[in-house]
């Protein structure tokens, strides 16, 4: 499944658009950046409520296919700017992290 297909399937909102054709392979959930750095795998979807600029560097280094901000969290302006510059996919949803994870589990 691609990021674009996931957006359409789960009705997610695109807040920063990179390569939406990237494939998705699995999911990692976490807000502590060292844990995410250590455990998120390339092509994972990363679910978090962290929305500051540092998530962009972590997404770049872990090579996740997209970040999904849950619980209706929005990235701050600095984060959004950097994500757009680095072409990192950031999506958002008003679903809780759990609800989104359950839905992801059904479609991935």
């Amino acid at each position, binding site marked *: 499944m691609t990021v674009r297909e996931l957006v359409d399937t789960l009705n997610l909102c695109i807040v920063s658009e990179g390569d939406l054709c990237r494939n998705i392979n699995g999911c990692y959930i976490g807000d502590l950046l060292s844990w995410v750095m250590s455990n998120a795998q390339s092509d994972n979807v990363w679910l978090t409520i*962290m929305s500051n600029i540092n998530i962009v560097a972590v997404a*770049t280094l872990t090579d996740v296919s997209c970040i999904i901000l849950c619980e209706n969290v929005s990235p701050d302006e600095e984060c959004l700017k950097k994500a757009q510059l680095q072409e990192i996919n950031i999506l958002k949803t008003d679903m809780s992290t759990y609800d989104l994870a359950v839905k992801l589990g059904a479609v991935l």
Partner: protein
Amino acid sequence: MDNNTLNIRYEVVAKDFSRAGEASSALKKVLRKLNISPDIIRKVSIPMYEAEINMVIHANGGYIDVDITPETIHVVLTDNGPGIADLELAMQEGYSTATDNVRELGFGAGMGLPNIKKYSDDMKITTQLGKGTTVEIFVNIPA
């Protein structure tokens, strides 16, 4: 300089979280261009990011020198920060001296130094209170 060695220097600015991780991201791009395998890039990127973040949070910034040969990637992070009082304690998972405002950004999990050790092939820390810390990360490139 050996013809087979590529040397790169990055500067890390203290307390500037908007640029934290830029050196690690830049090196990742270089390693990709050199056709280094994703597994090896990961082994370098995770420790280097952790050490870079430590420099931003705890030290007064500093320099990162990277030497790349066909066999190894050697990253040396040098700062003039406060030094590490108890290195054994700092190496324990979960131990952190990060302040609350740093933790709110998602840091301070106490996994920085343990992650460096876990992912690199070898690490070396030299630290002196009031003088600074040098973290060396070694990653081998299999033939």
